[in-house]
C-alpha cells in the first residue's frame, strides 16, 4: 500500500524531515493545526502514542495539544498534577495580559512540577515524547512545553548478580539510567560530581550519562571520553557493551580495556580516583575508564574487610588467574617435553593413569577444554534448573564415563577442572573471557615447542599487555609506572595495604588532587606523598607532576 506521504521519487515527506543522523529538522509552527499535522505524520501508525487537543480557560480560550507515549508516562503525575488542574482552570483577560506568551501561562498554572521546560525544536520534542515525557503544543506559540512525566515499570534495585559480596552494600545498578545515577549520587553528595547527559544511537536515542568528579578527573581524560563517544554514529545501543566496544583502544585485543560493573559503590569509588564513568540506559552495567589489568583483580569487598585476609586473597587471585590460562599448556609442555621435571613417583603415577588412553595429551586437553566450554555455554543458556542438571551430567557423569572408557586420563579431568575453578576465582568475568582464549595459544605453542613454546606464549602475552593501553594509560600500570606516584599506586595491587596507608589517589587523578586521606587536623600542605608524585608541600610540582607524565 502506498504511503500517503510518498513523493514522486519514493522519498516520503517524513523522510525528508530527517537528516543523516536521523534528527528531525523542521521548525515548530505558530499555528497549532500545522504542528498537529506534523505530529500526526511523524507518528503515523504509532498506536502507542496518545494525542489529544483540548481548550483551556473560559474567558480567553487557549488551544493546546498534548502528546505522550502510553506506558512510558507516570499516569498519576499526568492526570493529578497536570490534566485535572488544567480542566478546572478558569482564566480572565487581565490575567492573560500579565504574561507574554501562552506557554508561560501553561507553565505558571497547569504544571505542578518543577521539571517543565520550553522547547523550540521538533526533534527535542519527539525525543522527549518517546522518552516518557509529555509534550504540550500551544496555539499561537512558537514554543512547546515538555513536562517530565517519565514513569514505566522497571526492575527494582536488586543485588548485583555478577559481583556479589559477603560484606558490603547489596544494591546494584538497574536498567533505568536515572536510578543508576541516583545510586551514585547518594554515595557522593558533592557538587563536583558532574553528570553529563547525551543521546546515543540515531534510532534508539539511548540516554547516556558521563559521570566524573570535576576537580579530580583529568580534563584530557574527560575530553577523550567525549571524543570517543562522538566518534561513531550508530543506529541503536541496547547495552553498555555496545559503547564499551566502540570506545576501547584496541579492537584486536581479547583483554577488556574498560571496566564494567554492576556495583554503584565500585563505580563511585572509581570516580573518586579520578576515573570517568559511563552509564547507559537499559543496561545494569556501568563502564569505568581507564581500566588497567590491576583493577580487574580488585573486588569491592577488598576494601570492606581486613587488609590481611584481602591481601591474601589478592595473591591467590593473581596466582589462580595465572594458572587459569597456563595450566593446560604447562601440563603438555612438562609431560611431553620435560618429564624429568616431575618427581619420579609422580611421573610414574601419571604414566600409569594414561595407560590405555588412545589419544595424545594434546588432543585430550583440547577435546576436554572444548567440552568444558560447551557445558559452560549450555549451562548459561539453559533455563535455571536445567542448567544445574547440565553441570551435573557434564561434570560427573560424562567425566567419569570418559575416564572409564579410556578416552581421557583422570589427570586431564583434574587439570581441566582445576583450570575452570581458577577461572571462576577471578572477580571480573570479562578478564576471564580473555584468559579462556589465550589458553589455547599456550596449549598450541607448548604442544609445538614444549617449555620454550610456553615461554614464548608468555612473552607474547606480556608484549601484548605491555603495548596495550586504556585511554592512554598503560594497561600494566601501576606495575610499569609504579615510580610515577611515589610508588603509592603499588599499595593497592597484589597486596591491599591497610586503609590508613592508602593516602593518595592513583595516577589517574589530577596531580593537585592526589591526597585522599590525612590525619584530622593535619594541614594538607604538610604532606608529601612521594618524590615523584607531582605534589610537594601541597603545590603541583610542574617538573615532576602531570607535565612529565
Amino acid at each position, binding site marked *: 500500500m502506498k504511503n500517503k506521504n510518498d513523493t514522486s521519487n519514493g522519498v516520503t515527506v517524513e523522510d525528508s524531515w530527517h537528516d543523516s543522523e536521523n534528527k528531525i529538522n523542521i521548525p515548530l509552527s505558530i499555528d497549532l493545526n500545522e504542528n498537529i499535522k506534523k505530529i500526526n505524520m511523524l507518528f503515523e501508525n504509532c498506536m502507542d502514542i496518545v494525542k489529544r487537543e483540548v481548550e483551556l480557560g473560559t474567558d480567553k480560550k487557549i488551544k493546546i495539544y498534548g502528546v505522550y507515549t502510553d506506558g512510558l508516562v507516570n499516569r498519576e503525575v499526568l492526570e493529578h498534577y497536570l490534566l485535572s488542574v488544567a480542566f478546572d482552570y478558569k482564566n480572565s483577560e487581565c490575567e492573560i495580559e500579565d504574561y507574554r506568551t501562552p506557554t508561560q501561562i501553561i507553565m505558571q498554572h497547569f504544571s505542578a512540577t518543577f521539571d517543565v521546560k520550553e522547547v523550540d525544536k521538533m526533534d527535542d520534542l519527539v525525543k522527549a515524547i518517546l522518552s516518557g515525557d509529555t509534550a504540550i503544543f500551544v496555539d499561537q506559540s512558537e514554543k512547546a512545553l515538555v513536562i517530565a512525566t517519565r514513569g514505566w515499570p522497571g526492575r527494582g534495585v536488586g543485588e548485583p548478580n555478577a559481583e556479589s559480596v559477603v560484606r558490603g552494600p547489596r544494591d546494584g545498578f538497574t536498567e533505568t539510567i536515572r536510578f543508576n545515577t541516583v545510586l551514585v549520587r547518594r554515595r557522593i553528595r558533592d557538587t563536583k560530581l558532574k553528570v553529563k547527559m547525551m543521546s546515543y544511537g540515531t534510532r534508539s536515542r539511548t540516554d547516556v550519562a558521563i559521570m566524573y568528579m570535576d576537580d579530580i578527573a*583529568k580534563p*584530557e*581524560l574527560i575530553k577523550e571520553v567525549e571524543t570517543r563517544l562522538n566518534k561513531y554514529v550508530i543506529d541503536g545501543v541496547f547495552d553498555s557493551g555496545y559503547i564499551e566496544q566502540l570506545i576501547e583502544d584496541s579492537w584486536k585485543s581479547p583483554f577488556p580495556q574498560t571496566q564494567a560493573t554492576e556495583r554503584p559503590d565500585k563505580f563511585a569509588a572509581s570516580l573518586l580516583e579520578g576515573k570517568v564513568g559511563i552509564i547507559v540506559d537499559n543496561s545494569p552495567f556501568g563502564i569505568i575508564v581507564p581500566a588497567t589489568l590491576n583493577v580487574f583483580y580488585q573486588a569491592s569487598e577488598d576494601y570492606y574487610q581486613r587488609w590481611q585476609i584481602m591481601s591474601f586473597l589478592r595473591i591467590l587471585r593473581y596466582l589462580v588467574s595465572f594458572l587459569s590460562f597456563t595450566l593446560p599448556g604447562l601440563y603438555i609442555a612438562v609431560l611431553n*617435553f*620435560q618429564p*624429568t*621435571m*616431575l*618427581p619420579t613417583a*609422580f611421573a610414574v603415577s601419571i604414566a600409569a593413569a594414561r595407560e590405555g588412553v588412545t589419544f595424545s595429551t594434546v588432543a585430550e586437553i583440547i577435546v576436554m577444554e572444548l567440552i568444558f566450554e560447551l557445558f559452560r555455554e549450555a549451562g548459561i543458556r539453559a533455563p535455571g534448573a536445567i542448567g544445574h542438571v547440565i553441570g551435573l551430567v557434564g561434570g560427573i557423569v560424562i567425566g567419569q564415563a570418559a575416564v572409564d572408557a579410556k578416552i581421557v586420563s583422570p589427570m586431564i579431568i583434574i587439570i581441566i577442572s582445576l583450570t575452570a575453578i581458577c577461572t571462576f576465582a577471578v572477580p571480573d568475568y570479562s578478564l576471564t573471557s580473555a584468559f579462556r582464549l589465550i589458553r589455547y595459544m599456550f596449549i598450541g605453542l607448548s604442544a609445538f*615447542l*614444549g*617449555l*620454550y*613454546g610456553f*615461554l*614464548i606464549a608468555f*612473552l*607474547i602475552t*606480556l*608484549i601484548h*599487555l*605491555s*603495548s596495550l*593501553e586504556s*585511554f*592512554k*594509560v*598503560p594497561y*600494566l*600500570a601501576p*606495575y*610499569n*609506572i*609504579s*615510580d*610515577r606516584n611515589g610508588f603509592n599506586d603499588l599499595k593497592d595491587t597484589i597486596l591491599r595495604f591497610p586503609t590508613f596507608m592508602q593516602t593518595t589517589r592513583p*595516577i589517574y587523578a589530577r596531580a593537585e588532587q592526589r591526597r585522599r586521606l590525612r590525619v584530622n587536623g593535619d594541614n594538607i600542605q604538610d604532606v608529601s606523598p612521594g618524590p615523584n608524585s607531582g605534589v610537594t608541600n601541597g603545590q603541583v610540582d610542574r617538573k615532576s607532576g602531570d607535565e*612529565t*607524565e
Partner: protein
Amino acid sequence: MFTHNGRVSVRQVEIFLILQMLNTTILFLPKIAGDYVERNGYILPLLASILGVIYVFCIEGITKRFPKDTLVEFLPKIVPDFVAYIIIILFAVKILIITSLEARMLGEMISQVLLPKTPIQVIILVMLLSVAYLVKSGVEAIGRMGEVLIYFIAVSLVLVFLLVVPHGEYMQLMPFFQTNLRGIGVGTFVVSLIFMPLEIMLMLAGLMKETDKVRRAMLVPVIIVGIASAIIVLLTYVGVGFNETQRQVWPVLTLMQSMSLSGTMVENQEILMMTGWTFSIFIYLSSGVYFTSLIGSRSFKYKRENIFVLPLIPIAYFIAMIPENLVMAYDYYNKFQYYFGIWFILPVPLILAIIARGRRNSHAK
C-alpha cells in the same frame, strides 16, 4: 596522558640497560674472569665498573650536547655527512651482528637444555618473530615490558643466591688476591665489555623524557650490574668449583643445574631459573632489532620507526646461522665482542665529544 609520545622514562632506561647487560656474557663471565685472575675473578666486575663509569662519562659527554637528538641526528652536525653516514652504518651493522650472534647463543642454549630434538633454526626464528612483535609496538612498549620482566629476573637471581650461599664451598676462593697485575688490567678491560649495551644510549638518550638525567640512567645500571656480576662469579666458584668452572662453556648454567629445591614438586629447577635469563636475552634482542630499525627509519626520514623491523628479521636470522656449530658461534661471539665491543662506548663518543667541543657544537646553538 602517559603514552603515545615515543619516549621512555629514566627508570625504564635503567631497567632496559640492566636487562641488556645481563646477556649471554653473564653465563660465561666466571670462566672469562677466571682465565685472567683465577680464583679472584669476582674482583674483575667490580674493577670493570670503574671503566664502566668512564664509558658513561664519554657517552654522556656527547649526548648532553644534543639532548633531543639520536646519533643519526647529531652526527651530521659534528662531522661531514659522508663520515657521519659511514659511522651510522657501522653502528647499525655492529648492533645487528651482535644481536644475531646473541640469538644464536640463545638458540644453542635452548637447544641444549630444553629442545635437543628441535632444529635450532626453528628456535631462533620463533624468538626473532616474537622480538619483531614487541619491536613493532615501539620503544614505550619495550620500556614497559622491561619494567615487568625485571621482577622475574630479580626473583631468579635472588633464588640462585639463596640456594647457593648456604651450601657453597668457600675454600674454592682461596688463595685470596694472588694474581698478576697484567691479568687484572686485561681482565678488567675484557670484563668491562659487559657494559657494551651502554652504546645504545647514543640512540636512546634522545628518546628520554628527562634528558638531563642521562648520566644517572647509565650509572645506576653500571653499578648494579657490576655488583650482580661479581656476586654471580663468586657464587659460581663456590657453587660449581673453580676448576669445573674453567672446564665448562657456560658455568653459570652448570651452577643452576647444581641447585635443587628439596621437597618441591619440581625437579630440574634450572629450567625455571633460566627463564629469567631468557627474558633478559629477549630484551637484548628486542633492543638490537629496534635500534637497527630506528637507525634505518631516521636515516631515511621515515615517520614510521618500525618500518625496517620485518626486513631485519631474516637478515638477523641468516647472520645467526652463519656459525656452523656451538663452538664456532661461541668463538665468533667472543671475538666480535672483544674487537668491536669497545668502539661505540669509548673511542667514538670520546672523539665526537672532543670535536663537538672544539667546534662549539651543541643543540642549543
